[in-house]
């Protein structure tokens, strides 16, 4: 099951993708004000939701790692942060492409853009600390992940608190049914792909932890046998 689940999720993602393209480009009407470029929405918004979800997952897992010393939680936190960077890069590239076509400017420094960029940078810092930090840096990294998770509600409420070029959160809820019918499969495909990547990366991390333990034990055994030979 452990090995088959990511493959099943990839199969769902790959199988749904052609249907998404058919729905988005052939079955959904062109939005009146923005025109064809609005079709970026069907992947940009689900990616943003996935990025925020992974931020929360990483923060919660990091908190569990700090509180209970859970290695599974640690592996989930590292994996969620990495997949968040992929999804976040997708959001931060497709957003300005859409903005360039719609607002005439790729980056307007509005609160939602800045808070999203900040979230990505915090988790980039988390991944870098995890990768290059020395002994004990995992606690610092976990604290960074919890701090990053706090940014998620700021992203959500940014359009309510500050004046932004991004539309209000209610705009998604007010979509006509045919646009929702296209948004759901896109969200499903991207969630399936992201969760598949998350599961694989988590398994890698746990394998790496076990390998580290294995190498340490072998070194200890080798040292013990060398000491015995000397005595």
């Amino acid at each position, binding site marked *: 099951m452990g090995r088959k689940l990511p493959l099943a999720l990839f199969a769902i993602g790959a199988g749904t993708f052609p249907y998404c393209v058919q729905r988005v480009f052939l079955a959904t009407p062109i939005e009146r004000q923005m025109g*064809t*470029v609005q079709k970026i929405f069907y992947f940009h918004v689900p990616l943003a939701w996935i990025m925020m979800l992974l931020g929360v997952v990483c923060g919660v897992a990091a908190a569990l790692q700090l509180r209970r010393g859970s290695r599974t939680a640690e592996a989930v936190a590292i994996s969620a942060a990495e*997949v968040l960077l*992929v999804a976040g890069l997708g959001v931060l*590239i*497709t957003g300005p492409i859409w903005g360039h076509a719609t607002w005439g400017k790729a980056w307007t420094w509005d609160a939602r853009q800045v808070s999203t960029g900040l979230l990505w940078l915090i988790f980039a810092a988390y991944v870098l600390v995890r990768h290059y930090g020395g002994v004990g840096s995992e606690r610092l990294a976990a604290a960074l992940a919890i701090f990053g998770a706090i940014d998620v509600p700021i992203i959500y409420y940014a359009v309510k608190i500050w004046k932004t070029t991004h539309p209000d959160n209610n705009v998604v809820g007010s979509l006509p049914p045919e646009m929702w019918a296209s948004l759901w499969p896109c969200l499903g495909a991207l969630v399936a792909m992201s969760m598949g990547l998350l599961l694989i990366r988590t398994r890698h991390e746990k*394998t790496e932890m076990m390998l580290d333990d294995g190498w340490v034990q*072998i070194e200890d055994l080798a040292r013990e046998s060398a000491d015995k030979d000397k005595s």
Partner: protein
Amino acid sequence: MAFHNGSILLAAPAGGDYEKVEGRDRETIECQRACEAVAADKTASDYDHIVWAYGVIWALFCVYGIMLWRRSERLSADVATLTRKLERMS
């Protein structure tokens, strides 16, 4: 297409005769054509933006997938090395 005395004459096949279109003057047609050109430019620009956006998203996922696959290969090799070492020690 050709214009003649304020009415529009559509280009006809080789015979050289033109079919007269009634009810629309030259200015209206030119205005309509200009609007259509703007709309066509906007649509072409939108398509470019969409191709870039969708390309970037799927390229990112593919690159990360390849990175995970390479990591998987490296871990398998590491596990094999560790197992061999354990066998030699026991």
